[in-house]
C-alpha cells in the first residue's frame, strides 16, 4: 500500500465539488477507508458481489481467506497486533454464520472488529429465501452491538458508529448487515460524523475519590500483588503500567491475555496465574493481602475455585466495564475507568514501598519445569524447549500467536512475553484453529515484525488451509507445529481425571512437510532436540511461509495444573524439577 492517505485527498476535493453519487457498496468502502483501515479479510458470495465490485477500485487490500471464520480470526489478529480495528466481510447465509465463532472469540476477549455481512434483498427478508439467515438475531449475544441497514443514506453513519463502538469503551465485535439492494442503491456520499448517543458514554476517567481509596489501600498493604489483564494492553497502557509497577515495587502476575502488559523478564514480573500458571504466581495469590487487578475480568481459568481465590486479600478492581466489578469476585475498591487514565491519576498518588521480604518469599516459591522426555528417548524435542528456543532466537521480539491446547499453555509459560501486542492467543473462547489465521492478520498489520504461530497438530488441521492464503499473500510467517499425535489437552484431562480413557483423542494427520510443499510453502521436520535451533534459524532465513513439524513425545502433560473446580493453591505439579 502507498503511504499517502487517499481519504484526506478525497475529502479536500469534496469540499470544492458537489458530493459524488455512489453506490451503497462504494460508500461502504469509503466509510471503511475513513476509519484508517487499509486491510480487510473476507470471502465473496451472492449477496456481497456488489460490494466486491467496488473493492478493486477502493483503497483497500482485501485478503481472501479460505474460510470465513478465518477472515474473522485474521481481523482479530490484525486488531490485536496493531491496536486498530480489524475488519472482515462475508456473504449472507453460510458466509455470515461462518463468522459467528470469530465474533464470539472477539466478544470474550474484547477485541475490536467490525464484520460486514451481505443480506438478501429487502423484499425477500423474512421469506426464507436462498441464503437468508437472521444474522443480527443469531449474533445478538456475541456482538457488542449489531445493525441491519435499511437505507443507503445510513450506511456511512452506521459504519462510522460501528467502528467507534468496536474500539471505544470496552472494545468488542460489531456486525453490520447490509441487504444486497442497499449495496446497489445510489446516493450522494457525504462522509459521516459521529453523533454521540445519550445511552453510550463509557467512563474512561475514573472517580478521583476511588483512586485515592486505592492509593490508601496500597499504602497500607504488607503483601500487595498486582494482576494484569488484557485491559492494560487494550488501553495501550503498557508503559504507564510498567512505570506504576516500578514506582510501587509491587510484584506482578498476569492473566493469559495480560501477558505482555509489561516485560515478563522484568524482575518484578512473577509470571502467569491460573490453571496452568506459574507456581510462584499462584502461591503469591494465596498469600497476598491486597490484590490490585488492572483490566482483567476474573475469568474462572484465572481464578480457580472462587472461594479459594486470594483468600487473604482485599481487592482493588480497575475496569472500564462497570459490570465486571463484583461480577465474580467481591471488590473492596472499585475503580471504573480506562486503565491508562486510571494510571495517570493513580501513579502520582502512590509511594515507593519496600516489599523486599515479600518479594523474597515469592522468589522462594520455585517454579518447577517438567521434563517431558521419556527415559528411553532422551533426545525428544521438549515442547517447552522449542518455545524457549523460538523466544531466544527471536530475542522475544517476534509476534507470537498460538492455537489452543497444550502447546498454547507451554507457550504462555515459557515464551517470556516482552510486548503487549506481540502475544496473540484465544483466551476466553479458546478457539482451535486460531493460530494461523490470527498470524496472517498480525503479519498484515505489522509487516515490519517477525511473526510466528505455535500450533497443535489438531488445531492446525482446522485452519491449515490458510497456508494457501499465506502463500498467495507472500507472507513471512513461521509455523511451529507441536505435533504430539493427540488432541493433547483433552488427552491430558482424560489422563488426569478420566482414568486414562483416551476416547477419540488420537489424531492422525497428513505429512505436514509435504503438505506445506504442496501449498508452495516450505516444510521442515524436527525429531530430535539438537535440530530445534537450526530449524528455527533456517525458517527465519527463508522467504514466505515456513512450517516446522516438531514431532514431540505423545504423552507429555502441561504442569503445573489446577484441576477444574479446584482452588489455585491446589496445583498438580507433575514429576518435575
Amino acid at each position: 500500500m502507498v503511504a499517502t492517505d487517499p481519504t484526506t485527498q478525497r475529502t479536500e476535493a469534496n469540499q470544492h465539488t458537489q458530493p459524488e453519487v455512489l453506490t451503497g457498496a462504494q460508500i461502504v468502502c469509503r466509510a471503511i477507508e475513513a476509519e484508517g483501515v487499509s486491510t480487510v479479510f473476507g470471502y465473496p458470495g451472492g449477496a456481497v458481489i456488489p460490494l466486491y465490485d467496488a473493492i478493486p477500485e477502493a483503497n483497500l487490500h482485501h485478503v481472501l481467506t479460505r474460510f470465513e471464520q478465518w477472515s474473522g480470526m485474521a481481523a482479530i489478529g490484525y486488531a490485536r497486533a496493531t491496536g486498530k480495528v480489524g475488519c472482515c466481510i462475508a456473504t449472507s447465509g453460510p458466509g455470515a454464520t461462518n463468522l459467528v465463532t470469530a465474533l464470539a472469540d472477539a466478544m470474550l476477549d474484547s477485541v475490536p472488529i467490525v464484520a460486514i455481512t451481505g443480506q438478501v434483498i429487502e423484499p425477500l427478508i423474512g421469506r426464507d429465501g436462498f441464503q437468508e439467515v437472521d444474522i443480527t438475531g443469531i449474533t445478538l449475544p456475541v456482538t457488542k452491538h449489531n445493525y441491519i441497514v435499511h437505507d443507503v443514506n445510513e450506511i456511512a453513519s452506521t459504519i462510522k458508529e460501528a467502528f467507534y463502538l468496536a474500539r471505544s469503551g470496552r472494545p468488542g465485535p460489531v456486525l453490520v448487515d447490509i441487504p444486497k439492494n442497499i449495496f446497489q442503491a445510489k446516493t450522494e456520499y457525504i462522509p459521516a460524523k459521529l453523533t454521540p448517543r445519550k445511552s453510550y458514554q463509557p467512563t474512561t476517567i475514573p472517580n478521583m475519590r476511588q483512586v485515592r481509596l486505592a492509593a490508601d489501600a496500597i499504602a497500607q498493604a504488607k503483601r500487595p500483588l498486582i494482576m494484569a489483564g488484557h485491559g492494560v494492553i487494550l488501553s495501550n497502557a503498557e508503559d504507564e503500567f510498567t512505570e506504576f509497577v516500578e514506582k510501587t515495587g509491587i510484584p506482578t502476575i498476569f492473566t493469559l491475555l495480560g501477558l505482555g502488559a509489561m516485560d515478563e523478564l522484568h524482575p518484578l514480573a512473577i509470571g502467569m496465574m491460573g490453571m496452568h500458571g506459574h507456581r510462584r504466581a499462584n502461591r503469591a495469590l494465596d498469600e497476598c493481602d491486597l490484590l490490585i487487578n488492572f483490566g482483567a475480568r476474573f475469568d474462572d481459568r484465572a481464578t480457580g475455585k472462587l472461594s479459594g481465590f486470594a483468600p487473604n486479600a482485599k481487592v482493588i478492581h480497575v475496569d472500564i466495564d462497570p459490570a465486571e466489578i463484583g461480577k465474580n469476585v467481591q471488590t473492596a475498591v472499585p475503580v471504573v475507568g480506562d486503565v491508562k487514565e486510571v494510571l495517570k491519576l493513580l501513579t502520582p498518588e502512590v509511594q515507593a514501598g519496600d516489599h523486599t521480604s515479600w518479594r523474597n518469599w515469592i522468589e522462594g516459591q520455585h517454579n518447577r519445569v517438567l521434563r517431558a522426555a521419556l527415559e528411553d528417548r532422551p533426545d525428544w524435542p521438549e515442547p517447552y524447549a522449542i518455545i524457549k528456543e523460538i523466544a531466544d532466537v527471536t530475542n522475544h521480539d517476534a509476534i507470537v500467536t498460538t492455537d489452543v491446547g497444550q502447546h498454547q499453555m507451554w507457550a504462555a509459560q515459557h515464551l517470556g512475553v516482552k510486548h503487549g501486542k506481540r502475544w496473540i492467543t484465544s483466551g476466553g473462547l479458546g478457539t482451535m484453529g486460531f493460530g494461523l489465521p490470527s498470524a496472517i492478520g498480525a503479519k498484515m498489520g505489522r509487516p515490519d515484525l517477525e511473526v510466528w504461530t505455535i500450533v497443535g497438530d489438531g488445531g492446525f488441521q482446522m485452519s491449515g488451509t490458510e497456508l494457501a492464503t499465506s502463500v498467495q499473500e507472500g507472507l513471512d510467517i513461521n509455523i511451529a507445529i507441536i505435533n504430539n499425535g493427540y488432541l493433547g489437552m483433552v488427552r491430558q484431562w482424560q489422563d488426569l481425571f478420566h482414568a486414562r480413557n483416551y476416547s477419540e483423542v488420537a489424531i492422525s494427520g497428513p505429512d505436514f512437510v509435504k503438505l506445506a510443499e504442496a501449498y508452495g510453502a516450505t516444510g521442515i521436520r524436527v525429531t530430535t532436540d539438537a535440530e530445534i535451533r537450526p530449524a528455527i534459524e533456517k525458517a527465519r532465513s527463508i522467504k514466505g511461509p515456513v512450517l516446522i513439524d516438531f514431532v514431540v513425545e505423545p504423552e507429555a502433560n502441561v504442569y503445573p495444573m489446577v484441576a477444574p473446580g479446584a482452588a489455585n493453591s491446589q496445583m498438580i505439579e507433575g514429576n518435575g524439577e
Partner: protein
Amino acid sequence: MESQHTLVLLVEDHPGVLNRVVSLMRRRSFNIDSITVGHSEQPNVSRMTIQLRGEAEDIEQAGKQLYKLLEVIKVIDLQPSEAMIRELVLVKVAAKGAIRAEVVQTASIYGARVLDATPNSVMIEMAGTEEEIESFLTMMRVYGIREMVRSGKVALPRTLSKKTDSQTRHMNPLAAD
C-alpha cells in the same frame, strides 16, 4: 435474600430493542416475571417495566448488563414504597341470570368496570396493585373465570425524577464509584 424488584428502563424506540433486552436477561439467567413496553413522555424513547426476582447482587448485575445495551438510556430499580406499580387485568366471568347482578356488584366494590356482557358472561376490567388484583381475582374465581389476560406491571416513581428519593436507585454504572 431473593426478592421482587421492579426495573424501569428508558430505551431508544428502535425495532429489536425488546429482543435485545429479553435475550440478555435470558442468557444471563435472570428471572423475569413480567415485562411491558410502551411509549414514554419523550419522543423516540420507550419505557419498559421489568419485574424480576433475585438477590441484591443479581439485580445490580442485571442493571449493569442492561446498561451495556446501546439503546438503554436509563435503568431505575424502583422501590415499591417510592412508586406506583400497577397492572391491568381483563376477565371474562361466567354470569347467568341472578348471578350476573352479584358479579357486577362485586366488581364495583373493587372499582372494576364491566366492559361487555353476553347472555352467559360478563367481561370486567380492573386496574390496580398486585394485591388488589389478586384479591379481585379470588372473588371472581368463585363465579368461574373463563378467560383472563394480565398486562404485566407498569410503574412510575411518585416524585419527579430529579428529586427522586435516595431509595429509588438509578442504577447508573458510575454509581459503582
